[in-house]
């Protein structure tokens, strides 16, 4: 249970930033 909590919350902390990198790249590509 503890491991699941740590894993999940680590993703909550890190993944939005990771997703953003790709999303912003996509938007920039679309603008170009």
């Amino acid at each position, binding site marked *: 249970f503890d491991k699941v909590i740590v894993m999940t919350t680590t*993703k*909550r902390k890190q*993944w*939005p*930033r990771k*997703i*953003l990198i790709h*999303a*912003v790249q996509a*938007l920039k590509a*679309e*603008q170009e």
Partner: protein
Amino acid sequence: GRAQLFSTVVDTFLEKLVAAGSYQRFANCYRSFCKLQPELTKSIHNQFVSQLQESIKAEIQEVMEEGNLEVVLNSLDKIVEEAKSQEEPAWRPSGIPAEDARSSLVPYLLKHRAYLLRALRNKEEENKKVAESVLAGRGRISELQQQIQAHKRAWQ
């Protein structure tokens, strides 16, 4: 701050634990041995207490270092301080990753929308100018056609 509080709470715990394991109590449990060797009992108890304190302090130090707690707790103090003016409960993860991640996109989508609005406006401006030239061109062409018609009629 939290780091200070952490150390204070642990020290208090240790103090009370040592008070609970007082020499009286210790001598009472090892009564027969204590009668036989009171000095030794005393020094064993002192050793016991100081060793226990040392081990527990070392463990706490290790936990502090491993979790980088000193820095982390100070930064938490700062975050809490900044949120002082905030009355109502703050946002918390909804448990639906897609939804929460989506909100992180909003600022970029707003920028994208602003970009598109600007680009659209520029394009409209540009087209307006070209449209004016096209209209002028059409006018010019119908003028030429009329002139040609006039000449043609004259011929005929």
